């Protein structure tokens, strides 16, 4: 009997972990290069986070405003990211997004159309021109379904409802992954020549979040464990508009598309408070009054955007300020009003239902609010992590040979703050690149032997909680962690609170070593939570350490004790890796150099 007999072992050229937009796009590309490609996902196919994306995907196609170009998109992305972005990635993204979107159409996506029959594009925060290709407010569903339905005919091996719990390395490169199937709890080994991580974000580290149970930072943590570097982890995006009421839906996203269609923010005094605080960087790009703002959202090319379409970090902080100053809504948010547009257009009610059907539905059914007539109550919610695995901007490979990352799990494109709509396009552009380069890598690096001792260690670790039926409840540790991160490492940060958070995370780490689960291995969410918890704790610590080290406020990070940007901090990215002693190691790495042509583009678009 071989040592591998207790595992279900399969062999592939390229193994893709994650079936969201990034994972599926990578899979389609990899298989197009003629290599055996497998995809693993924790949920059923078609349920990944991408399915929830609402507003659209950014691509400078210029269908609505022909002044748009990749250069402007590039400059917008860099400005939004506080210039910590990897310019190589920002350039690829801006240049390639239009073809990636058109390609989706050729695979069956059915976008909303302009009057002259092109793909329609809408306004979004931080984008100079209407740029988001969309389908009402269910763009993510359209994208994911298109990739899924196209992908199933590309000869992929798809492993649904399976969780990867460790990456396997040997001889300094990645050789596969180890995990279990959720249905039966059987242990599995996927051997592969190259591995692409496309596992998404970390939102479950916070109490109020738009993210699902899947977002436990698995990819970031698994890569960290085998020596990969994590970059920019301090930058966690708090989306300004999540639902605040009723309590059970707190955090669920209200798309920026509402503001793109003319929705405005008001405080309890009825004031459009966003006009009160316009950041210097955007001074020239904001409407001077309500009237100009409305003209902008209805397509007047000479008008500037309303302040509700500034970047997310800024709006989230303004909302926070209003709430703290006692000018919030009854349930601790502010008002987001789209119904007001009936003063400006006929059939406003129908228009809203047509443009924002799922928002209409969501508020009607979950909060009993008719958004065509009443204002919504909204407040900030943890939404997205800009940081992640540090990768090469051309190939998406990280410092571990054969290990690639794409989508939300990777860092670089968004710098300190992501513009809305730049994630879906990110998934397509870098999913494609990761798939291509992983396939090339796998062609010259066949699957190698796995280290059986490593498998044994992982299995022992995974099954331990069953030996402690009276151990710590994994749900309550997760819950406590979410409170620590929400309260101490949230929208407004200070040194003392974050130091306290690190302390508390240490304590939670110790408790997590003693988790206990009841029942057996078949579809046991308690057990799954216990395993995911390890990852969540790793990323929470990384976020906190990086945030502590960055003594400035930039993009998504706001430090009460350092409320402004610092020149010194504009020169580096924070990089975290596992030190030789097993402790977390932090470095400041100089930001990537930019080609002079790109600098010129930024200057021109200032």
């Amino acid at each position, binding site marked *: 009997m071989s040592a591998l007999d207790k595992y279900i072992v399969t062999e592939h050229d390229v193994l893709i972990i994650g079936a969201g937009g990034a994972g599926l796009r990578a899979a389609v590309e990899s298989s197009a290069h003629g290599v055996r490609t497998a995809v693993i996902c924790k949920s*059923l196919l078609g*349920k990944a986070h991408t399915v929830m994306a609402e507003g659209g995907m950014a691509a400078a196609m210029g269908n609505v405003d022909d002044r748009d170009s990749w250069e402007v998109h590039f400059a917008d992305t860099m400005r939004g990211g506080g210039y910590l972005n990897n310019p190589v990635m920002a350039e690829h993204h801006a240049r390639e997004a239009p073809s990636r979107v058109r390609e989706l159409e050729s695979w069956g996506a059915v976008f909303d159309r302009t009057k002259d029959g092109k793909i329609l594009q809408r306004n979004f925060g931080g984008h100079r021109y209407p740029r988001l290709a969309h*389908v009402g407010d269910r763009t993510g569903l359209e994208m994911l379904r298109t990739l899924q*339905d196209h992908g199933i005919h590309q000869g992929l091996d798809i492993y649904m409802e399976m969780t990867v719990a460790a990456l396997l390395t040997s001889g300094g490169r990645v050789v596969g992954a180890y995990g279990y199937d959720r249905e039966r709890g059987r242990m599995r080994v996927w051997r592969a020549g190259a591995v692409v991580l496309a596992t998404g974000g970390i939102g479950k580290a916070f109490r109020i979040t738009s993210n699902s149970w899947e977002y436990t930072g698995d990819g970031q943590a698994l890569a960290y464990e085998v020596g990969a570097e994590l970059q920019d982890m301090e930058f966690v995006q708090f989306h300004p508009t999540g639902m605040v009421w009723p*309590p*059970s839906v707190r955090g669920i996203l209200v798309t920026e598309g509402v503001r793109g269609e003319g929705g405005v923010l008001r405080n309890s005094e009825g004031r459009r408070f966003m006009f009160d605080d316009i950041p210097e960087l955007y001074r020239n790009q904001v409407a001077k009054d309500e009237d100009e703002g409305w003209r902008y959202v209805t397509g007047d090319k000479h008008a500037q955007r309303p302040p509700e379409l500034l970047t997310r970090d800024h709006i989230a902080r303004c909302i926070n300020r209003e709430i703290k100053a006692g000018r919030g*809504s009854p349930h601790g948010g502010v008002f987001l009003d789209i119904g007001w547009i009936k003063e400006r257009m006929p059939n406003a009610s129908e228009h809203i239902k047509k443009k924002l059907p799922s928002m209409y539905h969501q508020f009607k059914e979950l909060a009993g609010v008719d958004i065509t007539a009443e204002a919504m109550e909204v407040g900030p919610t943890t939404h997205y992590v800009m940081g992640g695995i540090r990768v090469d901007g051309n190939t998406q490979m990280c410092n571990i040979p054969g290990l690639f990352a794409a989508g939300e799990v990777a860092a670089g494109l968004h710098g300190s703050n992501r513009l809305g709509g730049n994630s879906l396009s990110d998934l397509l552009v870098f999913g494609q690149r990761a798939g291509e380069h992983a396939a090339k890598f796998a062609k010259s690096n066949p699957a190698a032997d796995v280290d059986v001792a490593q498998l044994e260690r992982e299995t022992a670790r995974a099954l331990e909680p069953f030996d402690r039926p009276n151990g710590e409840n994994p749900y309550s540790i997760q819950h406590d962690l979410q409170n620590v991160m929400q309260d101490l490492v949230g929208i407004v940060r200070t040194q003392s609170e974050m130091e306290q958070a690190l302390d508390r995370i240490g304590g939670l780490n110790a408790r997590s070593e003693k988790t206990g689960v009841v029942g057996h291995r078949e579809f046991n969410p308690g057990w799954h939570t216990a395993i995911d918890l390890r990852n969540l704790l790793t990323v929470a610590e990384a976020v906190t350490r990086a945030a502590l080290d960055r003594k400035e406020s930039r993009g998504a990070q706001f430090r009460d004790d350092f409320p402004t940007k610092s020149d010194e901090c504009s020169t580096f990215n924070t990089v975290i890796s596992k030190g030789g002693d097993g402790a977390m190691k932090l470095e400041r790495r100089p930001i990537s150099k930019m080609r002079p042509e790109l600098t010129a583009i930024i200057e021109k678009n200032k």
Partner: protein
Amino acid sequence: MASHTANSTESDTRTVVFRIWRGDVNGGQFVVYPVEVTQGMVVLDCVHKIQAEQAQDLACRWNCKAGKCGSCSAEINGKPSLMCMTRMDMMPVGEEIMVEPMQAFPIIRDLVTDVSWNFEVKKKIKPFKPRKPDNADGSWTVYQADVERAQEFRKCIECFLCQDVCHVLRDHHKHDEFIGPRSMVFTAALEMNPLDTEDRLADLKNRDGIGYCNITKCCTKVCPEHIAITDNAIIPLKERVVDEFYDPITRLFRMFRPKS
């Protein structure tokens, strides 16, 4: 400014008794769980609360909690529903709430069923085949009015509640002969996509069992996306099948003017 009607700020708590089916292929039974329910909670919140406090290993699927992913399908008081969109304050007060897995699919555990059949069926349906691009950049010129019907069908979140309620599958187990309402909606989205050039009518008639549907409209009633499954997808497909195979005039006409 539009006025906001706050329902009520204080949260009134009450205890509701849940009867949840627990078991696997070897059988199971309903287990009773009392749950403290506060305002605004949905059934999925209650299931999560039970998981966190009383039954760690209670199996269920979910992702978005907002009716967007179609993961949390179950039968609540006998009605196929999304647990995340079923509000507790819509449920009859004072009565127990029964939650059980979908009946049209094999059980895996507790509220989780094996829905893989749906994925297999989809794979057999001929994929999208667009006409040649209209423009040099590889794009097409298509107007909003022409895509609206396909867009209605593409709202489908693959919750499979319609499959669950359809008597052809649920009671008569014709899974080998009938692809079910979800797959009809999928086929309709392809057939009514203005760019598509594939022909799926013969498959619909022979392999997919469109004739089994006797237009009871039960599927339409449970669809959380409010897709008019029967009226807009199945009936038009049935008409196309009839035109293609039983109407000699249309058939002749088609011979001389192939599908564009």
